[in-house]
């Protein structure tokens, strides 16, 4: 692809056609604060934090929506730019609850990060209070609209990436909030609980109900279906505490469905079977693997041929499925092999 050069804050930066100023800056490692921009979403221009000055242009264009052009001279740190940025952050803080310490987004909150970047030290405006609309209906995540900054990322991700469109803006002006069609609870809407919105939300307005932060992450492939999404499992001690899509993975680009994102609860579930059980005198009794496998082998031998059938699982790998059909045909002598995904 053809590249050209522009100047950002006096630094020559290489950019490609079709890139915005924000993208060019990001590639060059220059931080321009923003809250509503997302590389996977169309430019939106609402938070006004990425305003810059461009020589020869009127006013303060937003870096997220202005295409970079050859020879462009961009300034990201002028008195006017800083005035707007500071003002916007102060306004956002003015109607935001002050409970960072107990907020699920604490320390990885974009709003916190930008307030720190801009250096807001005093609260000039009066505190405004928006009605705390909390939607607790979804089993996996919670919505607290008093922390919503109306960046619209959830709305846009749900519509642009998933084509679901479960949430949208309701009302206008200061009364605007994010809600579902007919303002029903999320579970009663067409929300698929995929959790993408939670992933993109810059604040604690959308947060997973699992409150534990992982101490390490393990890259793996989601075991639920044959798509094979890349996931990062969050682990803390011996416990699986979270799962996020792997943005580097070519299969899913970071997206997940509800099962991949939230369906890990069985792993550490108390009812999960961790050893074989054998029924003795009407009760299941714990047994060793050797004991159990011997019992199976003994009984399988009594049912060879077409009396026998094998059902495999979509959650198994290709190799496991190959082995199961080999076992059915070669060992058990039957062609009765099938798979749950066909049922």
């Amino acid at each position, binding site marked *: 692809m053809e590249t050209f050069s522009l100047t950002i804050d006096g630094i020559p930066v290489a950019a490609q056609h079709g890139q915005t100023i924000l993208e060019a800056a990001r590639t060059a490692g220059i931080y321009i604060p923003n809250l509503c921009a997302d590389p996977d979403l169309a430019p939106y*221009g*609402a*938070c*006004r934090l990425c*305003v810059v000055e461009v020589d020869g242009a009127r*006013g*303060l264009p937003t870096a997220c929506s202005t295409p970079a052009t050859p020879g462009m001279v961009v300034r990201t740190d002028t008195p*006017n730019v800083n*005035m*707007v940025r500071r*003002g*916007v952050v102060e*306004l*956002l803080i*003015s*109607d935001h609850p002050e409970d960072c310490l107990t907020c699920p987004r604490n320390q990885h909150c974009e709003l916190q990060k930008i307030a720190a970047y801009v250096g807001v030290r005093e609260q*000039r*405006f*009066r505190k*405004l209070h928006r009605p705390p609309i909390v939607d607790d209906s979804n089993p996996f995540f919670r919505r607290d609209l008093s922390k919503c*900054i*109306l960046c*619209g990322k959830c709305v846009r991700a749900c519509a642009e990436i998933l084509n679901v469109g479960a949430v949208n*803006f309701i*009302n*206008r*002006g*200061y*009364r*605007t909030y994010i809600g579902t069609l007919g303002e029903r609870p999320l579970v009663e809407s067409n929300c698929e609980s995929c959790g993408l919105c939670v992933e993109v939300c810059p604040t604690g307005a959308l947060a997973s109900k699992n409150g534990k932060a992982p101490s390490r992450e393990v890259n793996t492939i989601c075991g639920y279906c044959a798509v094979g999404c890349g996931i990062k499992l969050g682990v803390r001690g011996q416990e699986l505490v979270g799962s996020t899509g792997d943005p580097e993975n070519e299969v899913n680009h970071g997206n997940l469905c509800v099962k991949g994102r939230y369906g890990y609860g069985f792993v550490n579930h108390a009812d999960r079977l961790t050893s074989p059980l054998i029924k003795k005198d009407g009760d299941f009794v714990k047994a060793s693997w050797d004991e159990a496998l011997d019992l199976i082998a003994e009984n399988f031998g009594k049912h060879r041929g077409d009396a026998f059938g094998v059902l495999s699982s979509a959650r198994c790998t290709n190799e496991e499925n190959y082995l199961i059909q080999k076992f059915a045909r070669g060992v058990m002598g039957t062609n009765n092999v099938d798979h749950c995904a066909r049922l």
Partner: protein
Amino acid sequence: MGIKLRDVIYEVGGGIPDHKSFKAAQTGGPIGGCLPSSLLDLPIDYESLTQAGAMMGSGGLIVMDESTCMVDVAKYFLTFAQSESCGKCVPCRVGSKQMLEIMEDIAAGRGEMEHLDQLQYLSKLLKMGSLCALGGGTPNPVLSTLEHFRHEYEEHILDKHCSAGVCKSLVVAPCQNTCPLGTPVPQYVGLIAKGAFQEALDLVREDNPFPGVCGRVCPRPCESACRRGTVDEPVAICDLKRFIADEVSLPEGSAPVVVAAEDLGKVAVIGSGPAGLTAAYHLAKQGCRVTVFEALPVVGGMMAVGIPEYRLPREVLNSEIRAIEELAVQIHTGMRIGKDIDLDELLARGFRAVFVAVGAHQSNKLGIPGEERQGVLHGTNFLRDVNLNGQLSMAGRSVAVVGGGDVAIDAARSALRLAAREVHVVYRRSSEEMPAQQAEIRAAAEEGVKFHYLAAPKQVLGGNGAVEGLECIRMQLGGWDSSGRRRPEPVAGSEFHLDVDVLIPAIGQSPDLGLFNGNGHGDLVNRGLIMADRRTMATQRPGVFAGGDAVTGPATVIQAIAAGAKAAKSMVRYLKGEELFISPGLPDKTRPPEADSWSPAEGGTARSRMPELDPERRKRDFREVETGLTRQSAVREAGRCLRCDWEE
């Protein structure tokens, strides 16, 4: 390029109805801007409007008169624009909400001066940072009113007062709100209705030592605002004040005035007009030893040497002055500061503070040939002579008075009473625009004064020194000026002669600043008026305060009284070493139980008429024309009050 704003308002739109004056015009709808009268000549085109902070838009042209509160207007437009915000970008969504909250606070009397800086900052933020033109335009009404009507914002914040009477939390009742002194009208009218005349007078006298004077000469701004006027006719507030002042004789009848025990030391008051004497009254009550210096041989300022006796009998004035003297206020007549003793000398002689209230006594000149002739008597000089020299006569003379204010009408009616053969009043505009009180004009006409409207003097005629006639020229009304009145222009070749031998110009007065005696006081004077802070009446000089006509130019008795009261308040603070200005609290609007039993006289109940002497009889001497309400009609009149202060 475009048509002028003035022409649209006056020529196309027919001007401001009900004789009200133009205040501002909003162009471009709710996100346009407000243009004040100083911008009436603005051409209506895109560039000019944008430059003036307004907008060219389809929102129409909203023209506002004096009964509009600019804080309320800006709040109204902001509410509208704010509800139109789409809510997408932060500056518009949250910024306009913040602005609206501030505006609501200011209108409710909860404003702070720093709010004005916040409004400026937020406006800039919305303008520079909003996503679209709606957000960028939302601050326009606030910005433009802040620029052109900042004093109204300050009035709401500092004085807790809304001149237009619109912002409810700041207004007790329209009448009280309009009175320069804030006289508690509904309360005293209510007391009169109950027959509690003395309590009513005591209440008025708490602030105003001149109820008898005001009850006779006040131009009654309260009555123009009175809400009863929207039902039938305004309550006769002023006549009622006169009634209680007449009913209770001073000082015996009135409750003894309480004087503070504290001694705040010696203070001086220069000028014994209503401003000076009111200040003296309050200063004395608060424990100052007050000395009043008066240049003339009589006490009372224009109340004694301007306003004629047939409107204000001297015994009424004098009894009210005596009641002030009862408070150990010393009045030295015949002492002209600047001549007999210097201002600086006063301060050196141990007066800890001085209130300068020297009025406006120098008549303005017509500036026409022949004005220096004998027989040209300037209005206030003539009236002073009438008052101080009992021998004056105009028998057989024919008099022309030039001007249209109270002084002109008083001069004309006084000349008539001094046996003048004929009295003419020459006024350059039309009768409707005459600033004198309408009742006065009517009374003068009844007595036979001849009015020549749309006429102006051109030269004084005559041979050897005396006046032998006045050449006038007819005027026609031309374009509109910034006061919303049409400018009179001479009609070429329309000269005519008035056969008169006395000419009394009465076209306004200016203060005589002789008291400053030349040098060293430049910091106190601007354009012929003494400069004083409108809230504290303090001048640039520590300890020197000023108020009344000398500060405002010719105004009214009640304005002078209000200035005196304000000055006394801040002088006491000065003497105690306190902050000169402290914002008053918000009016207490709790409804007392008795409010439920108040039922005002039915709509259509006519206002009590002030009885007056027959024109033919009265015009021969200086007897008081108006004779006062009877007890019965006063009580009945008081029952017409709607008690707006008790409005739910």
